[in-house]
């Protein structure tokens, strides 16, 4: 039977920053009477409701679906992206994982490519730019052949799905000492490299996405593997290995990265 509701008192050391140009600082905020069955984000809601009534600025943080799939939420809790829960986003972390009297350090995801908008809110739009550089299969709506015309081996489809499971939250970037987006990029490259539909563009895709990653100011991968352990969807670094193979093949193919305005797609 579920444990009865109880409340704990905690202290937050939480990052406050008014905008990208503000220097920011840690603020120490005690939170009393936290229901242990509430989630970490619900604890922040609870705190914010109190702060609003006291005329204090609420702490802003990104969140939306609160079921671990949209990839909106994300923050460093005691130095770990999404906190210490295994394979979960912060919206799935519950306060029963903490003890009465704990001090919890809360910071935004930090990376050169992610600027801080406010408090725990960061700008992850560079991840969008990487996808725009080639994270898709270039087919227009209409004219697709019958779905069963192209068989895909079950294990390939499963592996492609493993990569496709990425929710784009940015935890891998925040965890990486180089602030690299390699796990994110490789998951998408790998998904399409495994599927026959993705083959025609594999070479240009890998080169274009990598070039965009560099241009956005993400670092490179040097095999620290912390991205994998930080990933709430357990996306494996084996995708990075596949990315590297595709990258070498693309280099041998003599293809060049394609600019944003895809030459084949001008009207």
């Amino acid at each position, binding site marked *: *039977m579920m*444990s009865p509701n109880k409340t704990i008192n905690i202290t937050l050391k939480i990052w406050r920053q008014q905008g990208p140009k503000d220097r920011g600082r840690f603020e120490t905020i005690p939170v009393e009477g936290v*229901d242990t069955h*509430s989630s970490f984000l619900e604890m922040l809601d609870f705190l914010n409701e109190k702060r609003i009534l006291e005329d204090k600025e*609420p702490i802003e943080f990104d969140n939306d679906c609160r079921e671990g799939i949209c990839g909106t939420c994300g923050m460093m809790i005691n130095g770990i992206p999404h906190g210490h829960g295994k394979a979960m986003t912060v919206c799935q972390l519950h306060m029963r994982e903490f003890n009465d009297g704990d001090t919890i350090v809360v910071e935004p995801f930090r990376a050169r490519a992610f600027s801080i908008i406010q408090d725990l809110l960061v700008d992850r739009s560079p991840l969008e730019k990487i*996808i725009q550089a080639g994270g898709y299969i270039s087919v227009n709506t209409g004219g697709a052949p019958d779905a*069963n015309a192209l068989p895909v081996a079950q294990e390939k489809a499963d592996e492609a799905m493993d990569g496709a499971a990425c929710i*784009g939250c940015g935890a891998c970037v925040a965890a990486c000492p180089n602030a690299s987006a390699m796990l994110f990029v490789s998951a998408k490259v790998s998904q399409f490299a495994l599927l026959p539909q993705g083959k025609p563009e594999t070479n240009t895709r890998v080169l274009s996405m990598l070039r965009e990653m560099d241009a956005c100011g993400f670092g490179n991968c040097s095999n620290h593997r912390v991205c994998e352990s930080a990933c709430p969807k357990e996306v494996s670094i084996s995708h990075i290995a596949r990315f590297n193979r595709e990258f070498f093949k693309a280099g041998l193919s003599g293809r060049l990265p394609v600019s944003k*305005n*895809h030459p084949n797609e001008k009207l």
Partner: protein
Amino acid sequence: MSQLDGKIPGGPLSAKWDRHQLEMKLINPANRRRFSVIVVGTGLAGAAASASLAELGYTVKTFCIQDSPRRAHSIAAQGGINAAKNYANDGDSIWRLFEDTIKGGDYRAREANVYRLAQLSNNIIDQCVAQGVPFAREYGGLLANRSFGGAQVSRTFYARGQTGQQLLLGAYGALSRQIAAGRVTMFSRHEMLDLVVSGNRARGIIARNLVNGEIKAHAADAVLLATGGYSNVYYLSTNAISCNVSAIWQAYRKGACFANPCFTQIHPTSLPHVSGHQTKLTLMSESLRNDGRVWVPKKPGDRRRPNDIPENERHYYLEEKYPSFGNLVPRDVASRNAKQQCDAGKGVGPTGRAVFLDFCQAIKRDGAAVIARKYGNLFDMYRNIIDDNPYETPMMIYPAAHFTMGGLWVDYNLMSTIPGLFVLGEANFSDHGANRLGANALMQGLADGYFIIPCTLAGYLSDAGNSNVGTDHTAFSESIEAVKQRVVKLLAINGKRTVDDIHRQFGRIMEDYVGLTRNEAGLKTAIEQIREVRAEFWENVKVVGPANRYRLNLQKAGRLADFLELGELMAIDALNRRESCGGHLRAESESEDGEAIRDDENFCHVSAWEFKGDDAEPGKFNEPLVFDNVTLRQRSYK
């Protein structure tokens, strides 16, 4: 009472869409770039429409409130997407998917729309596979199908438990490609706060940049709203925190009719209410009911641990009441009965808002390993959120608001009653009648976005031509001023209650009186109480600014203000529909043994409401529903 024209094409049902496409005027490819389109929302419908229209050459501006278009709430759909491929060779067909959807909607949807949806279902699967959506496969490499939501055929395509995510990422990829090509301008973290209408035509929108609070006008030749459903009116629902009614509500206030607002779907197997701070009800697959037995203690207020309650003191209420369907009664019946038990004081768990779902017998029969193989991921999820082991102790479940079948009224072309304003996906009312079948929501969003709107929008624009009303027009400046005034007003109230606090109180009214079971007295009470809460909101809400920064409580305040108006319209619609149908149960229209009774003689129509002013009763149009191809039958699950 007046009527609305759904503009259903003539001819036999199966030929209507083909004929309509042929009769619809086209726009020369070279001329398309001269037409601009605004799309609000980037879920399946909005992302698919933005990408497809940009591919055709239109100039597209797309808006979403999330920080990325990939995060729209379509992403959370788990189960799958239906299509009439008949890959399983089990007798499925377009006709059968059409019939199942019409019957599932309890005969409150248009035949022609639903048939078109069933036809397009097959194109959707082809399109998504071409985009690289990693659907589940059989050993031979062909697509796998499963049976879903009580269907007798296997027509559901799926990508693990993340079908919505994968379909959305497919559409997002297509959208990203068009953004890169410069044909879509993307406005993330922007919220639409008003629709601009002048000369009986939609001219554009007013949107607020959520990061810096800037309020700007955007003009276009057509506006497409794909802004999803309004289940968050109940406060607790399976929807994401940002899901709201504001875009379609502002359109309603500008003259678009709102159809069947009271048609909501409440899902029976959500995780229960466990904490007073709860903000979200997480859905679990209803497949759990295949092996779980639902019960509550016979004695109200029995707080013993479930395993300490002897067999003869347990009430297996579904099995007793519905001997032939038992625990597998449809969503609405299961949900209604759970609430009745909790209202009678027999609810369990920390807040008394839950019933047990017990796997003890199934584990004894099949072994824990078999149950783990079927439901392992769900059991793990339950264990993480609820902190309890469902292999040993019964799960607790409770119904949660999940999907809204009602929405803005649209004709066969997906155009609202305001020319130039189109509504797609869950935001419109059109295809699910009074109850949506499982795995049909994804299908509708993508059919609207990929295939219907590219055709019907051309038909509209070729006749209507360019709008030629720029953002310097008074219609825009007046609208901007009104939006700015509202923000100022919300910040100036400076009362004593937070937005969430008022929303919780309002949500409880909606749940109690405009939720699973409705009756005349209750609905009248609801209308009174909603008016009181609305007055309380405008006098006593406290919103902390400043408005020129990211301020979630300010965003939520605007959304709640609109929900508080919608709630009343939902109650008025429910009061007006004196029959039970689908997810709408009127206690007065129930047989002695608790079966819903439809009244086809008086209510076989769509109710579409028209805004008449803040203090005036809304006007009502009826669109009669004509069934030439199916026979109307009453449901029975005894």
